[in-house]
């Protein structure tokens, strides 16, 4: 889906029409929430991040030109908001330092559980986590991942490779059984 920003809706939204803004952004809320959840691993935090991102998008409407692809534009703001959230002091205390599940890393002789993967994903550098979530959880093409993350496609590929390398132990058992 690469819906373009409808010129009339953008014009109305820029004039303060919240319903027009809703028509522009509303269809993207589901993907925005999934992106935020994939990055933050917390439903409430994801809701808050999407809401905050929407408010930022509202404030940045003047930068939105008719014909802009809406999804990369809005999801880029969501991703940026998630990065901001993760940079917060209390987030790092409460989330990144949270104890891993009982499985932890290195259980290569058993099938990794969903919790293992979530822990592994949580321990990735935010920039690696972001591209992996966009590519493999939101199923976006590389070009759109690059647009959302604000980096070249080549950098997307290298970040994905590094991220997957760090998570590889959690895919290997499954590889063995598939």
């Amino acid at each position: 889906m690469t819906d373009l920003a409808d010129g009339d809706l953008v014009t109305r939204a820029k004039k303060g029409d919240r319903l027009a803004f809703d028509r522009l952004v509303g269809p993207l809320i589901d993907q925005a929430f999934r992106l935020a959840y994939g990055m933050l691993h917390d439903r409430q935090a994801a809701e808050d991040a999407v809401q905050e991102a929407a408010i930022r998008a509202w404030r940045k409407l003047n930068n939105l030109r008719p014909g802009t692809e809406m999804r990369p534009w809005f999801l880029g703001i969501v991703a940026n908001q998630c990065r901001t959230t993760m940079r917060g002091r209390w987030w790092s205390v409460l989330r990144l330092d949270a104890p891993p599940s009982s499985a932890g890393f290195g259980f290569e002789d058993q099938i990794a559980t969903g919790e293992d993967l979530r822990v592994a994903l949580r321990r990735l550098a935010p920039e690696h986590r972001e591209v992996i979530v966009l590519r493999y959880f939101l199923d976006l093409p590389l070009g759109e991942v690059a647009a959302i993350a604000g980096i070249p496609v080549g950098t997307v590929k290298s970040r994905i490779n590094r991220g997957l390398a760090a998570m590889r132990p959690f895919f290997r058992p499954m590889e063995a059984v598939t």
Partner: protein
Amino acid sequence: MDELIRSRLHDALDVEPPPPYLRSRIINSLPAAERPVRWRVPSFQWARPWVAALLALAVVGGLVYVGRAIGPQLVHKAPQRPITPAILISPTGVAIAPDGSVYFSDVLSAYVFHQLPDGSIATVAGTRPDASISEGDKGMGGPATSANLFGPIGLAFDRSGNLYIADTYAQRIRRIDRNGVITTIAGTGIADPALGGYAGDGGPAKSALFSFPFGIAFDGQGALYISDGDNGQIRRVDAGGRISSLDLSTLPMPRSQFLPGFLAFDPAGSLYAESGDTYLAPTGRGCEIVRRTVGGVWSPVAGTGACGFSGDGGPATSAEISSGGGIAFDSAGNLYLADTYNHRIRRVDRNGVITTVAGSGTEGFAGDGGPSSKAELQFPRGLAMARGDLLYVAEDADASGTPTAPGRIRLLHIASGTISTVIDSQTPIHTSG
């Protein structure tokens, strides 16, 4: 390998969809005060409120400092959550009460107001602009001034003087009885409060689903008609509270282009519906006014379906409009429509000829006290005709206005052809109802 990773991540991050209220919560949380402001030639008048505000802050700060110095008992503890004052942002729907007073909705500030005899306004329903739909039907069954609204647009009074509100963003219809008690009479909002749904025909209206119910109007028998905007339907709630959908098979336009907004009945009992992209800028097609006779047959009244501005002095059905606004009738039976995106009020006389009666086509608020045809209008939306052929016009938020009170209510004197402002940002607001 890609598919394996994708599959494993989907399993690991399997998450319930976002809560259905999130979309409404987002829209309701957008700060109206931070809309982009259009640049105008500086007059330095803008500095006055800032200077006043800074002086006020200095005075308050000084008082607090002195209070603390004198003793803690003199300093009141600040409330944990400041009360959001009622503000006028985006007047949208208008209705005239049986006693002749003016009621209007404000979709962005989420209030319904009415005008008091001294010219000030008071809240009728709503508690604060940022009320979230996730709070549910807070306040229903109690005083309307303590109940949340989430985006009121259409207003109508029944024959008994009860006020009905299309709480568009809550996907519900509210009623305020003459004692000021508010209840929900149609719509559950349960399926998806953000987007609504389409269900419930044949059953009680309270169990029905809507998708952005917009305009409302009563017929002569007391049945309530509701434009179910995003469903492209018009719903009817009979006096017994049962809901149905009108037959639209004779509509003069393709069903996909029928986007009903404001509704009105003429004195003969025919229903008129404005079709456009309701609250949105028209997107090229669908700008039309249609009529449904008492017998249930639809026919065009104004507009060609193409959005634009043309045709004054000719047949209304050959003229282009760019509507999104209300419909009203004067005592002679002429129809008035708010041609929202042309910033005009247009009249269709009983011979079907369309003319512009207010608005030069320029967006703005200039021209009060002068001829209405030369005045500026700004996104006129709701219309209501009061006795004496006084047409009240709700004009929507202004991108270049002050953030707190950009909209206004204008009064068009049909007989004299003059226009004036009756409610604007300077109008005192009472929040006690």
